[in-house]
């Protein structure tokens, strides 16, 4: 057994275990079909499908880089658009919380926590990628995560864990928000009563 075979096998096992502990392994198995053998040849396929198994709605596109000047082009990239009902639920709860408290999305501590969790999860060991967290606060935009993977990106095996961490953070945010929203609304403090206006007769 050479180094590459062992490396591939252990990375496949790690990804599968991450998905198994998040209840997503069956999805990966369905996607893999007959190609479940733990081999170096299958590593790439397992990585790609593992990335698509975490969020319930995952779309992957190939984008050619746009021409930005006479000779220069943006780099080609793969774009993953990741959506999940958990994100929608979190977004709905955030909206309710904000409207009850009369605060904006920026002032919402739960939204900030999830954003921090996204940034922390997306610290991958490869630099050749970018991501965009769309929190759904803009009109007609559902919450989603966009991943831009450029040519030299190779850390596909780290993505499933990162995505699972984001969903975990989302789930815990939902729990906290639900509890927060169950609490009765705080007492409304009455404004000091205004002294009754005395009408004066015109002289």
């Amino acid at each position, binding site marked *: 057994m050479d*180094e590459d075979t*062992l490396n591939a096998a*252990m990375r496949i*096992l*790690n990804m599968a*275990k*991450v998905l*198994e*502990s998040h209840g997503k392994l069956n999805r990966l198995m369905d996607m893999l079909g007959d190609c479940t053998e733990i081999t170096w040849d299958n590593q790439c396929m397992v990585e790609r499908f593992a990335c698509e198994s975490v969020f319930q709605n995952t779309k992957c596109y190939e984008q050619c880089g746009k021409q930005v000047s006479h000779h220069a082009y943006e780099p080609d990239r793969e774009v993953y658009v990741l959506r999940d009902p958990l994100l929608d639920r979190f977004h709905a709860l955030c909206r309710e919380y904000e409207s009850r408290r009369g605060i904006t999305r920026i002032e919402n501590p739960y939204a900030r926590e999830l954003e921090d969790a996204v940034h922390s999860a997306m610290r991958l060991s490869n630099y050749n990628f970018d991501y965009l967290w769309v929190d759904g606060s803009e009109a007609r935009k559902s919450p989603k995560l966009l991943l831009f993977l450029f040519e030299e990106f190779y850390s596909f095996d780290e993505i499933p864990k990162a995505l699972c961490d984001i969903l975990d953070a989302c789930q815990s945010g939902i729990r906290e928000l639900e509890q927060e929203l169950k609490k009765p609304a705080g007492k409304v403090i009455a404004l000091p009563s205004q002294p009754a206006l005395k009408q004066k007769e015109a002289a």
Partner: protein
Amino acid sequence: MRKVLDLGELHKQLRQTEEHEPHFDEELNPYLLDTVLPQLEGEEPIRLEQIDFDQFDEEDPFTILDYYYWRENLCNTMRHINRRISDILPSCVKTRAFL
């Protein structure tokens, strides 16, 4: 540069050295080590369906990888020492014998 290896001195030093086997610090998962690795080494096909995921944690496969690299480093060091010793040409040294 001329290198001289005194086999008598080497023998003496080795006898005086305390024997201690190099030890890998982290604990290796027995399921991966005794069930999965032998199958991979024997090039037997092994599928994800056959894996018992309750038997190991997420980080255990990486510990196995670390162990593999650690062992490889150790082997490389030994090979290097062996090669250096082998490269030294033997030379005769006069010794005085008391009969």
